[in-house]
């Protein structure tokens, strides 16, 4: 039998098996916590911090997706500090990237009263769309740097390591090694990265061409599998 740990989440006593995250424990008692970088098939990276919750007595907030429930902790999934952090993260995200096709972000913005144009004066991260292969396009204007594609391409799924993060700070960005076009990289076009991308930054090429108004012949011509020599 696994050991049980008890905690209080928003005033309710909860008992969960040791090793359960705060996110899972909260969901068990019907308290939903927003997530962006977290994906059930990937290792919790704790990067976006939208899932931050407050533990009484802790100096900082903690990421619910990456924090295991500790015995006798008192956890608040909503508080002044929690709500401010979520709101400001959403506001800053919308000022840096194009989140128009990220449904979660738009929904959370409603919940947390985020003013998505608050930091509109700030520098935006703009890139040319990368259309270098028949399978998917990369529109990094929409990328929020959640890191899921790099995880899926690497040790969480595919072990191919075609994708990586380059640069630092605000100018971090996802690319291939030495910025090679994907067909020249080690990419095997498994599509796992496209599957986990939450913002449509990575999009199947057929879908993208359709949205651009291409007709079927054009789409067929542009998405033909390259022949092996």
């Amino acid at each position, binding site marked *: 039998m696994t050991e049980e740990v008890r905690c209080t989440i928003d005033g309710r006593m909860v008992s969960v098996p040791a090793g359960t995250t705060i996110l899972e424990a909260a969901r068990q008692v019907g308290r939903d916590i927003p997530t962006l970088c977290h994906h059930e098939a990937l290792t919790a990276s704790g990067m976006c911090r939208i899932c931050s919750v407050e533990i009484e007595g802790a100096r900082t907030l903690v990421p619910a997706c990456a924090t295991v429930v500790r015995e006798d902790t008192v956890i608040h999934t909503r508080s002044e500090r929690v709500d401010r952090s979520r709101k400001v993260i959403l506001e800053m995200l919308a000022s840096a990237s194009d989140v128009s096709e990220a449904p979660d972000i738009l929904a959370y913005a409603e919940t947390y009263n985020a003013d998505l144009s608050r*930091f509109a004066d700030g520098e935006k991260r703009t890139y040319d769309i990368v259309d270098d292969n028949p399978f998917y396009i990369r529109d990094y204007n929409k990328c929020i*740097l959640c890191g899921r594609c790099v995880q899926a391409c690497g040790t969480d799924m595919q072990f191919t390591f075609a994708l990586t993060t380059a640069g630092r*700070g605000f100018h971090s960005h996802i690319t291939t090694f030495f910025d090679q076009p994907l067909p020249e990289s080690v990419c095997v076009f498994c599509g796992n990265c496209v599957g986990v991308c939450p913002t449509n930054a990575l999009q199947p090429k057929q879908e993208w061409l359709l949205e651009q108004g291409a007709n079927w012949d054009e789409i067929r011509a542009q998405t033909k599998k390259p022949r092996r020599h």
Partner: protein
Amino acid sequence: MVPRTNILGKRVGKIDPGSLPAYVASGGFLALRKALTLQPEEIVHEIMAAHLIGRGGAAFSAGFKWAAVRRETARPKYVVCNADESEPGTFKDRYLLEGDPFRIVEAMAISAYAVGANRGFLYVRGEYPLAYKRLAHAVAESRRAGYLGLNLWNTEFCFDIEIYRGAGAYVCGEETALFESIEGRRGQPRLKPPFPTTNGLFGQPTLINNVETLANVPDIVLNGGQWYRTLGPLTNPGPKLYAVSGHVRKPGVYEATMDLTLQELIYELAGGIPGGRRVQAVLVGGAAGTFLRPDQLDVALGFDTLRTIGATLGSGAVMVLDDSVDLWNVLRRVTRFFQHESCGKCFPCQLGTQRQAEIVTRLAAGNVHPGDGAALTDIGLTMRDASICGLGQMASSALLSAFSQFSLLPREDEL
């Protein structure tokens, strides 16, 4: 009486830092030799009794850390010396590394023996070429003379040190980013827990200490924790190095016990303010620190005394700004530093350091918008509460302290 001490710096500038014989002649390696006659637990006990507080900025008890790594049963264990010193205005580790490099080698060996490690890693800031050269020489000389290597003094204890050079990232001074850097990955902090004491370098139990923390160790081993505890205030004992820069006549590194006041440091040790000017503000703890006002100079420069007035000692950097300084310009520089150094891993800091610097740069140019104060406070508190590591958590510290200490922003109704 200014409580100056001459313990950490006793060899600096007095002996040739490249000479092992000179180090040995001035009492070098006596502490390691003595340590090897004691049980490892006894050494941990002395460090605990000394109440040695980590000097790297986080002010964590060295004894607790040593005891935790000692307890771990996984093998191998490692010791790491954090010599990445990159906090703006901080140059006290450099003083020790360049002036008494053998002391660091000796202290690392003692720490390894105490916690049960056989390999040490010294991570030196990339922009410290002289420190690197002297450390590399000290390690090679110690190895050649048998102070490092197999079965030291015919005991069971074996120990050697590898030196790594940083590549210029401030964040690589954060302990887990430092491990990632040594392991050959992007220099980004890991999530904690797990902590280095259980899962550190290469996933193994690791003792990581700052240069100055380690520099205290030989004297504690030689004279005992009780002796150390008598130096300065009981809660913050031992000698401390202060790096003073800015508008003082004699900037430099000063050693004293932590009952030293800011007033004494500025006026009696650093020679006061030149040109008949007055202090406008003092930034204590570097870019990640907090501002003090001229009427707060009687505070003692200890970890706990500063905390009681909402400030931090941090790395021990003291930057003095006279009344000719434009504080907005200082804040612009500080916020640009964090914008440049954020690793980008977590959203609050990746985005917040950028927006904070943009707004402060505009304000420094005299262009105020309604809502700026609220925006900076919101960004600052979000970074403080939700960032992964100390970089983001402290990136708004100087700015927010400047807001609470000085009236820098016009009231909203005056805009």
